């Protein structure tokens, strides 16, 4: 044990007056004796006290001395020398990722990390500095060069709960920037994930693990694809990170109204997808929630839900190159949001065209827009056309989404060209070959029909408009709305006429985003509301209407943060870098251990004084050296019983 403030031991000098006080104090003990008759005749029996008493410490003295010794020891700030945990400059990197929100027992991992760091920096000594870096989605310095444990505690109190992954690279970059060449620097990383070896190389780094292996369920993705007519397709990815099968309940709500509720069985470490169609207006908020239906522990709550926003399908510009086909153009125009332009041949400039439909005209090889080919005059590269066949049968139909709600069984074809291609998937066909194929030709979505509508009754069946609608959606449909992931950066759409918009994260705070720098780091999962902010000069006043809402942002959890089954990293003690300066030994303060001793001594003294007072008040009872009442009673009972026995045997 060493002392950080040896001068505090000077308080031990108070023992001297304490002892002297006991030597000088006249403490006339009250002593009951059998008689004072003889003492009265002793001429030397003095009534004056002797100035110097024999040193007779009592319990009070020992307790006071104990309190004095322990108090002086506490003033001297004792500490134990431990392995180096604090260098001249200790940079603490605290993992603030989403997985640190997991609860181990009654505390979160982040809270545990906060306590561990506080314990470590309690040993901060003179001349030592501590910096704290929060390793969240974007690393930030909470405090730099703190010289007291209180400063560090204050910085730890500013740690924020975040839901995204930790950017340890960024944190180590910041830590490196904080290093000074004249200081022995220790980087103390507190995390629940393995620290990449490249980050700790050539650095004095200690890793303090937090967290325990836990079960967890989560929704890892929710995609919304508008399908028109007020419907949208949902794509939901579910994940079970535990090592045992789990029965869970999936709930889908649209604007807080539950539209889907089902029980799903998740195998150990399994991920499953669910697709479903929901109905709702543009701007409606969809939420998918997965909770265990059995007694499985769900270690992380933030990934139990994912959000999406419904939207209307976008306008699709279609160019139909055809010599004239009322069935084709009528079916295209029947699709919601489709604008059809009929031309005689494929134009050279296809700028702004979302879909090219080629009907019995030639197809250039370098078309870069999605194509629907209906028996073109020539086939582009990648499509192999066989010899025409007559009256081919349509006996095979795949479950491709192009054939959703489409039945080609009644379709009759007079003459058709069987199609094939390495990048094409058969959609429908028969023994004579595939009549409908789909795929990506050089990356361009393409659907091809090997027969003309004029040679078939397809256009006369109910399947035709549905097939065209499916084809338009598959080829030129709006891209699925992909939600932002926690910890990522999104570009906020600031409408024209506004200089700023106000974004409200789920925690209720408000962030102002300007049109000049519209990027925003979204570090919390949930729905981020967007409202108009400051208007641009001369803007349309309608844009600034109070209460007007802009499309909300949704932020979904990062799939990697939910894997709580990963074991925590191995603890790594401080290893000084090869040529770096030597680290100062760590200090384990011991003052907290001695303070309870002082308190215990004071309590004991109080109890002792109380007991003594009660005994005096109780008067007689239980003092040794004489005949006790209990003994007398026992003797009397015994004697009486013997006397009765003698009386019985006497005649």
């Amino acid at each position, binding site marked *: 044990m060493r002392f950080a403030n040896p001068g505090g031991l000077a308080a031990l000098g108070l023992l001297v007056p304490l002892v002297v006080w006991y030597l000088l104090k*006249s*403490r*006339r*003990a*009250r*002593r*009951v*004796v*059998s*008689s*004072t*008759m*003889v*003492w*009265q*005749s*002793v*001429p*030397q*029996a*003095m*009534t*004056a*006290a*002797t100035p110097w*008493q*024999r040193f*007779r410490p009592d319990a009070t003295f020992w307790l006071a001395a104990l309190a004095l010794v322990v108090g002086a020891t506490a003033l001297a700030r004792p500490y134990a020398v431990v392995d180096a945990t604090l260098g001249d400059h200790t940079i603490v990197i605290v993992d603030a990722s989403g997985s640190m929100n997991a609860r181990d027992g009654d505390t979160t991992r982040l809270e545990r990390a906060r306590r561990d760091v506080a314990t470590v920096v309690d040993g901060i000594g003179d001349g030592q500095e501590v910096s704290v870096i929060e390793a969240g989605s974007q690393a930030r310095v909470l405090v730099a060069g703190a010289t007291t444990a209180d400063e560090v505690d204050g910085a730890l109190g500013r740690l924020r709960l975040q839901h995204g992954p930790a950017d340890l690279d960024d944190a180590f970059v910041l830590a490196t920037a904080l290093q000074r060449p004249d200081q022995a620097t220790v980087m103390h990383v507190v995390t629940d994930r393995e620290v990449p070896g490249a980050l700790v190389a050539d650095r004095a780094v200690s890793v303090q693990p937090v967290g325990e292996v836990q079960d967890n369920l989560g929704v890892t993705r929710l995609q919304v694809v508008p399908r028109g007519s007020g419907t949208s397709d949902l794509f939901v990815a579910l994940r079970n990170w535990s090592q045992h099968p789990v029965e869970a309940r999936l709930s889908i709500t649209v604007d807080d109204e539950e539209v889907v509720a089902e029980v799903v069985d998740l195998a150990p470490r399994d991920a499953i997808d669910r697709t479903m169609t929901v109905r709702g207006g543009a701007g409606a908020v969809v939420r998918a929630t997965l909770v265990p239906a059995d007694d499985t522990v769900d270690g992380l709550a933030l990934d139990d839900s994912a959000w999406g926003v419904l939207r209307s399908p976008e306008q699709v510009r279609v160019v139909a190159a055809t010599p004239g086909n009322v069935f084709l153009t009528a079916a295209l125009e029947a699709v919601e949001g489709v604008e059809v332009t009929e031309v005689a041949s494929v134009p050279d400039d296809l700028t702004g065209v979302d879909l090219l439909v080629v009907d019995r005209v030639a197809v250039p090889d370098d078309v870069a827009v999605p194509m629907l080919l209906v028996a073109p005059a020539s086939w582009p590269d990648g499509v192999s056309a066989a010899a025409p066949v007559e009256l081919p049968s349509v006996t095979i139909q795949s479950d491709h989404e192009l054939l959703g709600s489409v039945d080609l069984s009644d379709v009759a074809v007079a003459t058709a060209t069987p199609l094939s291609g390495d990048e094409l998937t058969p959609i429908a066909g028969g023994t004579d070959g595939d009549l409908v194929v789909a795929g990506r030709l050089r990356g361009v979505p393409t659907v091809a029909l090997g027969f003309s509508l004029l040679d078939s009754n397809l256009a006369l069946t109910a399947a035709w408009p549905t097939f065209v609608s499916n084809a338009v959606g598959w080829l030129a449909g709006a891209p699925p709305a992909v939600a932002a992931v926690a910890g990522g950066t999104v570009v906020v759409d600031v409408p024209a006429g506004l200089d700023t918009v106000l974004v409200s994260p789920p925690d209720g705070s408000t962030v102002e985003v300007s049109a000049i720098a519209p990027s925003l780091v979204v570090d919390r999962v949930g729905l981020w509301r967007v409202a108009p902010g400051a208007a641009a000069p001369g803007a349309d006043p309608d844009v600034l209407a109070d209460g007007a809402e802009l499309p909300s942002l949704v932020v979904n959890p990062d799939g990697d943060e939910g894997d709580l089954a990963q074991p925590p990293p191995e603890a790594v003690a401080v290893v000084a870098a090869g040529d770096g300066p030597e680290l100062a030994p760590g200090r384990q303060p011991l003052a907290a251990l001695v303070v309870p001793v002082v308190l215990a001594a004071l309590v004991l003294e109080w109890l002792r004084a109380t007991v003594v007072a009660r005994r*005096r008040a109780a*008067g*007689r*009872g*239980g*003092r*040794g*050296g*004489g*005949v*006790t*009442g209990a*003994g*007398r009673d026992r*003797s*009397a009972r015994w*004697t*009486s019983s*013997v*006397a009765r026995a*003698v009386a019985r045997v006497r005649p």
Partner: protein
Amino acid sequence: MRGLRLPRRGAAGADTALVARAGPSGAGPVTSGPVTSGPRADGPADLAAPLPPAVVTRLGPHRLATVSRVTGTREGAHRSTRHGHSLEFADQRPYVAGDDPRSLDLAASRRHGRLLVRIHEAEDDTSLRVVLDASRSMAFGGKLGMAGQVARALGHVAAHGGDRIRVVVATEDGRVTASPWMRGAATGWTIGHTLAAVPTAAPSPDDQPGPAALLDAIRRARGEGPAGPVVLVSDLLVLDWTEVVRALATGRGDAVLVHLLGRDDRAPDLDGDVDLVDAETGRVVSIAATDEVLAAHTRALARWQDEVQRHAARHGVAVVAADDRDQVDEIVTVGLRRTGVVA
């Protein structure tokens, strides 16, 4: 027995005291010399504690004895103040009508020319009174227990010789408790029953002081029943101890004082400035317990013991100086035997 001071009957002063020392087993005197302090040991703790079997065995051969004549209620083994039919010749007197012709002393009648009859000594039983001081001062150390042991031992001796005994106790609360006259085998049990009813307690600084009615107890013992020996067992630590000795000497029959002191009386364990509180009177004496003061106390105690011896001798009271660490059979068979109360 660690030390036993046995003054000769009628002798005064410590210089005439005899000392009998016994081994640890108390088997009997092994040497003699001045009083010394032996290793500290506690005496009997309970006033009503029964006698150890070994002590009872050693008391077996002993009987009560009397120095002066007694007037008993039955025939016994002690010289009576009356004439009787023992073998011991006492006197002659002229024959009167009605005398038993078998008591005629023919030789003396022939020599004196007139009828003379022989008169023999009578032998009566004796009635022993044991007065116990159960005051608060006796509660220190083993004095009270030792007093009870002495009473039981005397009861055993009396019962063995066919004599009567009565125990009178001056209790700490100022009352006098007396047992009935006892004779025979049940004497020990009755004494125990009497002693068990005596209120005793350990001394405490918070006790209210109070004197014991020792004078009343002695007067009651002397005043009831036929004349006989009285044995007072007391530490005599009362201011009017001279009155107690005088009362003890008043009346017919032998008077013996078993002056019982304890360890705390002889060598109190004191240090520093102490307020001494008298357990009986409550009087406070403040002292500085230095070595000089303690030595002065020892000398004062010795002077007081000598004064007790002289005062008792002046009034014909035999004194047996005893300690609460002595063996009770030593007190009885050696100390009291030398006073003539026990044979």
